[in-house]
């Protein structure tokens, strides 16, 4: 029986994530930290890694990026649930930015 192992897709997504993170950090570090939700030390590490190391790091059977918002209300708002999608989106953005600010302290 065929068992989809998603291995290739995971590796591709991991690599795309790591390369994007590196590019973002190199272009505007503070904004990248906000968007990625990672701490300074991990940011330093990714920023300094060679392409070969990123590829090796991406070859894991586990997904490297992690879901940031384990909050049901926020997830629903992000998906546009509420009276109208635009207001829900704004509400989600306010809560998410607030969480990022609190976590960064």
């Amino acid at each position, binding site marked *: 029986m065929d068992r989809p192992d998603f291995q290739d897709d995971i590796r591709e997504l991991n690599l795309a994530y790591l390369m994007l993170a590196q590019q973002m950090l190199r272009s505007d570090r503070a904004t990248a*930290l906000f968007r990625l939700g990672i701490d300074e030390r991990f940011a330093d590490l990714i920023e300094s890694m060679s392409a070969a190391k990123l590829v090796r790091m991406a070859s894991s059977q586990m997904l490297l990026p992690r879901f940031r918002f384990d909050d049901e209300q926020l997830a629903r708002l992000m998906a546009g649930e509420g009276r109208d999608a635009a*207001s829900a*989106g704004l509400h989600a953005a306010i*809560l998410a*930015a*607030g969480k990022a600010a609190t976590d960064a302290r």
Partner: protein
Amino acid sequence: MKNKSVIEEADDVRRAVEMVQLGARMQMLEVETRLSREKLLRIYKEVRGASPPKGMLPFSTDWFMTWQPNVHSSLFMNLHRYFTGVGVHGLDAILKAYHLYLDHIEVGVIEPALSLTRAWTLVRFFDADLLQLAACTRCGGDFVVHAHDPVHDYVCGLCNMPSRAGSSRRKAATRKAVSPTRKLVTT
């Protein structure tokens, strides 16, 4: 103003251009750079292709309390708070937060109710302790309120939406961001 370094001046010009591109008024440029008024006028005209609008900046905190501006201002202040928290201050924090604010507006296909000059004024109102952030007792998010307002049972405009809120959003799509519309004030 005459005897400053060329590098500092180049830096000021770069910032002035960025601010004008984002829609800043002359008053903001004059405070945030050390360039002469003549030079700023030339930059403004070169970037926008028109003379800057004349007249005073709005100086009331009340605008930030009306429904739509309050939601947009609260988003901006949460972004701004992140940057000051990680050690980015002054104009840099305002510009980075404003770029992220515009990114959200673009993704949500909504009208930017908050102009850069308004955002800058907002930060100055916070610095002057005229406004503060208060946590909504329902969603836990932080929202812009008057300083010294009682906030122990505060509920934000998004948890307690006034019935007409948001209905004029699509109609507003053709209006300019610099002439925000006044909405009915609730509470």
